[in-house]
């Protein structure tokens, strides 16, 4: 597979959340606000990239029978480091993401790509795959978070910059910032992908 394909496959064609349907739990849980969704996807980007690179680097030295425990150790080390870093440098994001930062360890996207790709491919391809999957995740998260926040709260804010504000007169549909709204929105996103983007 060409290097460009390694990168782009994860963005639309094999988008981890919309197509592969992995990593749904954090995706639905933290997307009630566009900023939280964006912050989560940055954390996932870092962990996915780092874990894919390391797993690929050591893949020839890892005995097959204990590869899963080793992946978990590597992934949880990076996630814990990300937890400390977010806590130190962006306390507001830390408070918003809460328990979902440690839950990145069991985010299927990361363990899934380590097992399905990084373990069997060279470092460059694995890094690009990680990057692509993470961007696909980010795209989904920002759209999901954006839709939920606009309909459920009348705003769309990322990194303290308010892109949309429907003002005091807007009566928000609160269900969209609660779990049912998450499921509704992602269902429509998946349906839209099936209809228009599947080739």
């Amino acid at each position, binding site marked *: 597979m060409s290097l460009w394909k390694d990168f782009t496959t994860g963005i639309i064609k094999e988008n981890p959340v919309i197509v592969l349907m992995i990593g749904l739990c954090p995706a639905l849980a933290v997307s009630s606000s566009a900023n939280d969704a964006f912050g989560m996807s940055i954390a996932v980007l870092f962990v996915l990239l780092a874990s894919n690179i390391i797993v690929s680097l050591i893949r020839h030295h890892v005995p097959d029978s204990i590869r899963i425990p080793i992946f978990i*150790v590597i992934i949880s080390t990076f996630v814990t480091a990300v937890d400390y870093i977010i806590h130190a440098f962006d306390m507001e994001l830390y408070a918003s993401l809460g328990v979902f930062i440690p839950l990145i360890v069991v985010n299927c996207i990361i363990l899934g790509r380590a097992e399905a790709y990084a373990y069997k491919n060279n470092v460059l391809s694995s890094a690009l795959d990680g990057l692509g999957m993470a961007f696909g995740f980010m795209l989904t998260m920002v759209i999901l978070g954006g839709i939920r926040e606009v309909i459920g709260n009348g705003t769309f804010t990322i990194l303290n910059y308010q892109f949309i504000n429907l003002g005091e007169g807007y009566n928000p549909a609160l269900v969209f910032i609660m779990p049912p709204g998450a499921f509704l929105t992602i269902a429509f996103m998946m349906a839209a992908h099936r209809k228009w983007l599947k080739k």
Partner: protein
Amino acid sequence: MGDTLKLGFVLTVICVIAAGSLAKVYDVTSVIIKKNEKEMDEKKRKEIIPDAVGFEEREVDGKTIYTGRDAEGKAIGSIFKIAPRGYAGPINAMIGVGDGGKILAVSITKLDQTETPGLGTKITGPKFRDQFKGKEDNDLKLKKDGGTIDAITAATISSRAVANGVYEGIEWYKKAVASGQR
């Protein structure tokens, strides 16, 4: 047997490297985290009692009370923390009490709580928190519970947690003060 040893060895090496690097990251970040928390607390205290020239710290009944004094050394009010259980975890609030047990201010920032975004998180807004200013005793409870505080729509549990937390905090403070440890 040799195979098992080799597996154990590889796993150990990886774990040691992982633990070592994590410890380094922790060393660097924990310093920043503690410093941030200390600065946040100082900032909140200044916001609650802006006229205070300095704060006097003392331990009472397991809690730390900060008394703000003006330029003449007279006590303006006292500040302490409460942590009532909200809808999704503890709500870490800071209360300022003035003369006669009246509330000066209730400080809750986005970082101090993990309530539902858009609903329970409204307890951090001035519209909710300013209701407590100047009130005392039973007035501190929600209107539904016999007090004068308006709960947030669709966030009764979060609102009640704060109101009851403030009420119980003041009761504790009055007892601690009355027992002579002023």
